[in-house]
């Protein structure tokens, strides 16, 4: 049996099909959560970001152009929500905390965790393009369209992100020796 396309599901969901909406949600939940998790750098924030993004996306299905792919549109919303929250932190006032929680990443090997933590230290702009390129497989041109940036800017950010990550790897190797 042929799986319905995202466009078909969007159309059916917009016409009121709960099953289509549920299928669309399940199809994109994992990717959206990983994107939110990596861009925000926080597991606890990812839950809120993804819920918010899906609510906004599903409430706007009527405005979605069904001839275009759904995932980039959803991912753009996820990124915007994640960056909104990160930006808002600048004016959040840190309050007294009894103790610090445990490490962030679970069920990941030490090397992989180090790389994920290095990604989390990138600037938000570089982190976003890194996750879109290597985590979700978008080409630089697709990322440029999604973020409304020149392709050259995307390539430049990717190159600098890789430079930053290589630098972190070198620092980590130096600490080991």
């Amino acid at each position, binding site marked *: 049996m042929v799986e319905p396309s995202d466009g078909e599901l969007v159309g059916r*969901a*917009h016409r*009121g099909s*709960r099953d289509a*909406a*549920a299928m669309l*949600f*399940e199809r994109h*939940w*994992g990717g959206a*959560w*990983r994107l939110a*998790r*990596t861009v925000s750098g*926080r*597991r*606890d*924030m*990812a*839950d*809120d970001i*993804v*819920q918010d993004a*899906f*609510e*906004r*996306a*599903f*409430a706007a*299905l*009527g405005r979605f152009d069904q001839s275009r792919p759904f995932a980039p549109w959803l991912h753009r919303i996820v990124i915007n929500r994640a960056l*909104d*929250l990160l*930006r*808002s*932190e*600048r*004016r*959040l006032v*840190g*309050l*007294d*905390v*009894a103790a610090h*929680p445990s490490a*962030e990443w*679970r*069920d*990941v090997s030490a090397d*992989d965790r180090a*790389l994920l933590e290095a*990604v989390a230290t990138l600037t938000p702009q570089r982190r976003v393009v890194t*996750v879109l390129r*290597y*985590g979700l*497989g978008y080409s630089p041109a697709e990322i440029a369209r999604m973020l409304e940036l020149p392709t050259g800017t995307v390539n430049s950010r990717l190159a600098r992100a*890789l430079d930053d*990550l*290589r630098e972190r*790897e070198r620092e980590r190797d130096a600490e080991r020796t």
Partner: protein
Amino acid sequence: MPSELERRLERVLNDMPVEASSEAHDRARAAALAAAAAPAPGRGSLWRIVIAAAVAMALVTTGVTLAATGARPFSDTATVTKPPQAAPPHTGLLPRGARAFSILADGRAWVATPHRVLLHGAPRSAIAVSPGAVYVLEAHGRTLRAVAAGTGRVAKTQHTAGLATAAVWSPFPIRIAYLTEAGGHQQLHDEWGTLSHDYLVDPHVAAVAPSWRWDSLAVAYVRADGRVAVHTATSGHNTVIPPNCGLRHPTALAFAPTSGLLAIADRTRLRIVDTTGGAPDVCAAHSPGAPSIAWVRPHQLFVAAGATLYRYLLLQPGLGTDATTLPSRITGLTASPDGRRLALALTSGGSTRVVAATAPPFSEQATPLHVLQLLLPARPVAGPVALSWQ
């Protein structure tokens, strides 16, 4: 050709586990499906069908739940009476899109559903709307009554040992926690959603509305000595939470929607404690005043105290806060089920009005409160206002 680093990035980012809890997934799914079903131009008839299906599902769910408790469901024991007193239509009483909304202030209650106004300023000492707005539990004197929200039919009546001063349905409508006052003492009871199998949890508690955990298996309450305790319904054990953050005599508490996080507040302090013991306490100070708490997301909540509305974001580590100051004291607060809107009781000059407003988002700019709807016009009210939005 991709470098070794790029290949590693692809593998690590693609293999990254989705660490979201099933509760977070389910909550997001429900919110997304609800958003997809929201009305749009030209979809009026479809929307009515969706609403009817949702109400039918809620009725079926509750019926199954009640039957599963082993007691006879309400429909078997119901005493059919005439519909409730004719109340003046007051379409403003129901926030847009709400299944039910209730106000309890100075011993008077207002309850509205899309179908009818069930109570309009009637004397009641406690009100609780069941999840899905299927039943309204109302306390009058020493009597608790479950009334079908759709028809106004009295489904079940229960006599209590004292005046019921607060009542709360569990999120999965299998249990009810309620407080009674008798002989100068407040008592906490836990009973089945069928108003049967009543169990005295604690004979000496504070007059603070209890709060159910998301799984409906535990309820938090404030003891008479000011300590907060969690009663586990399955084992019957009461676990006292050790004091922290300098809180004295909490007057509000609320469990988070999908976890064991419990927000506790007194007149000047807020504490968020993980009752499952996994995370450290978070403490914060707020403007002096009787606090109200409303969670809007698994890690976000509003606290109203004095004339300030605080939005808190739980971080790891820490707590972000964002405050909106209003020209009136906030004497009541609740949130819509999707967390996007708030209802607030605003008191100034001895009169109180209830409004629906957009939940102010975290943003770089200070966001004023955007009032959407006047739910209850100004009237003289002295004490705090209990609000509920389904």
